[in-house]
């Protein structure tokens, strides 16, 4: 499947596929956009490039419009294993347009609708003209990131969204949200059902669109990291690390080895905390409160240790441009290793119970199956992809320090059901504990940060890390004064949300909560 081993990069293959239509290599900023190899194209060649990439089996990863510079720049990130290719095209100024990637990559559909809503970029050939991130506060030709707008004092409810209808005498619709029954984020789910069985699910997101891209503009590097930690609070380290990596690439700053190792410690702690919480949450959604309570207690203890040692239960604001704000001494390392031993000892019998409990099997096995084909077509990430046969993990495929010195094991299952997504999480807790032990055993001495200096004359950078939810991407443009001119984060939830629509049909409505929890997309990370 992967062509990276044959040393034929997407870039080389695409150059061969598009003779004469590829601009000479752009050396400016090429380093900063690593690990992506940038290929500059005319906007009109965007679709042929996408078509060729689809035939190569490339994975669509992210799309964003750099609107911090004129003319706007369209950027689309593709991957094949650890080989990243960045398509780059300048947009026309009065009428910004790009051919749609969606006919070739289904996972690009909502990203394109979102960028159309915010900037008015016309994605020519997009099959779905409906609004996505822009609800009812703006007129048809008002694009809030492109020009100042005057929304009404009270935004009307988004009640007229044209959901895809399912016809038939016995079919009825169930509307859920934006406010859900539990303590979770808002979004709307529209089910078409016959009896208890779901025929179709359609998502309507965007309710927590806060304007992250606009709020980022004008911030300094430290301010950007504060915002990045709050793109999706459960992924504070992942988004802050991706943004810090982008900033550091842009500025040519390399954090000390100890800082990078500590970032990995924080990222793995975030992974363990979330997987513990999700394992309990999945059990809770099928009424197995024993496991919910047990995993909830483990997560709470883990978070308390994060607060004691790193100053924050959810590890907000522990990264800084050029390093980290935290450090560990010998006593802390010893106590962390004792934590890991204790957690392993408690988890082993608990996992045995969870994976060998008939009434739990009855609800989880064979529920919410995402096929390998759908996972690949949508570009799913993280545990969702790995439970459906997609063997991918940035830490192994395009390793960044300190993972380039660590062997990262990647659990892959092929069943694609809820229990497979649970198993990936449970395996990853153990793998993360091993990584944490390895990181702490071999922690370089030295500083935890270098002085941050913004690049003279500005710059751009890309950061790609494997967060607990999957590949997390950030693109940053700094202006000549070192202030953020464009910040485009891509949460892995963006790529995983559509999987919920694919896997639900055929399941019963009462299994929706556990299906949803097993995907656990971030609303905030999606809506921005």
């Amino acid at each position, binding site marked *: 499947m992967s062509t990276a081993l044959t040393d034929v990069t997407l870039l080389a293959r695409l150059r061969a596929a598009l003779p004469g239509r590829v601009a000479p290599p752009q050396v400016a900023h090429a380093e900063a956009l690593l690990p992506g190899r940038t290929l500059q194209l005319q906007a009109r060649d965007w679709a042929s490039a996408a078509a060729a990439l689809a035939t190569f089996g490339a994975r669509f990863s992210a799309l964003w419009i750099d609107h911090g510079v004129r003319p706007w720049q369209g950027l689309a990130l593709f991957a094949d294993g650890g080989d990243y290719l960045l398509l780059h095209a300048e947009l026309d100024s009065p009428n910004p347009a790009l051919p749609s990637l969606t006919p070739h990559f289904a996972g690009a559909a909502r990203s394109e609708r979102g960028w159309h809503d915010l900037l008015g970029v016309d994605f020519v050939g997009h099959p779905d003209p409906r609004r996505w991130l822009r*609800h009812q506060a703006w007129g048809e030709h008002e694009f809030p990131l492109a020009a100042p707008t005057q929304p009404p004092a009270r935004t009307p*409810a*988004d009640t007229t969204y044209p959901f895809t209808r399912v016809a038939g005498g016995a079919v009825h619709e169930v509307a859920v949200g934006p406010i859900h029954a539990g303590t979770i984020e*808002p979004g709307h789910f529209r089910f078409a059902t016959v009896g208890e069985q779901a025929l179709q699910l359609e998502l309507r997101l965007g309710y927590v669109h*806060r*304007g992250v891209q606009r709020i980022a503009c004008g911030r300094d590097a430290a301010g950007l990291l504060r915002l990045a930690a709050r793109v999706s*609070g459960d992924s504070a380290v992942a988004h802050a690390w991706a943004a810090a990596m982008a900033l550091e690439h842009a500025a040519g700053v390399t954090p000390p080895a100890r800082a990078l190792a500590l970032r990995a410690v924080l990222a793995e702690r975030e992974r363990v905390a979330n997987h513990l919480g999700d394992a309990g949450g999945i059990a809770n959604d099928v009424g197995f409160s*024993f496991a919910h309570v047990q995993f909830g*207690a483990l997560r709470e203890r883990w978070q308390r240790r994060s607060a004691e040692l790193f100053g924050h239960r959810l590890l907000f604001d522990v990264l800084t441009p050029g390093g980290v704000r935290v450090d560990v001494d010998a006593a802390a390392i010893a106590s962390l290793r004792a934590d890991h031993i204790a957690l392993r000892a408690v988890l082993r019998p608990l996992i045995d119970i969870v994976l060998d409990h008939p009434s739990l099997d009855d609800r989880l096995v064979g529920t919410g199956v995402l096929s390998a084909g759908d996972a690949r077509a949508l570009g799913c990430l993280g545990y969702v992809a790995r439970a459906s046969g997609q063997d991918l993990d940035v830490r192994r495929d395009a390793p960044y320090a300190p993972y380039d010195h660590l062997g990262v094991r990647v659990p892959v299952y092929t069943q694609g059901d809820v229990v497979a997504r649970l198993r990936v999480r449970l395996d990853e807790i153990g793998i993360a504990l091993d990584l944490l032990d390895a990181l702490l055993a071999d922690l370089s001495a030295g500083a935890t940060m270098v002085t941050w200096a913004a690049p003279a004359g500005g710059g751009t950078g890309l950061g790609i890390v494997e967060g607990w939810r999957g590949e997390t991407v950030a693109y940053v443009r700094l202006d000549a004064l070192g202030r953020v001119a464009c910040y485009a984060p891509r949460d892995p939830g963006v790529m995983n949300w559509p999987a919920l629509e694919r896997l639900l049909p055929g399941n019963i409505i009462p299994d929706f909560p556990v299906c949803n929890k097993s995907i656990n997309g971030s*609303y905030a990370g999606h809506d921005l």
Partner: protein
Amino acid sequence: MLRILNRIARTGKLTEPLDTSASLEALGITVQRTLDARFAGSLAIRHIDAGSCNGCELEVQALGNPYHDLERFGIHFVASPRHADALLVTGVVTRHMQAALLDAWQAMAAPHLLIAAGDCACDGGEFGCSYASLGAVENVLPVDVRIPGCPPTPAVLLRGLLAALGRAR
């Protein structure tokens, strides 16, 4: 089943006594009503994320874990605003959540209480006002109790909620 019972027995009771040492004034709480009489010692809460990063949600969820066990104080979360005494709002109020938030508030029976939890809900926090965000909850609805923090820890949330109940001391 024996394994489960064995684990439960070995886990024991994790729930902690409440730490009441911190001064409630330091938490920035203003109790505007005498709640004991009105809510008869029990508070039903409907939570709404009006534009949070989901950090506050994680900590509100943690109130239910065995260490905190919120329900022992007579405080519980309910699914409908019609069943709720208090609305617990996290996050800034996005334009897209404005109508839903106002509708939920409208649906509640009086007397009702509005609790803003987290820096975003209290003062706009890291997001503040933007084309997409109306900022703090008080820009949209009258707020009775503020529980600051980014996010407020479960202990801080708990003390804030108890203060709202008027029985923390």
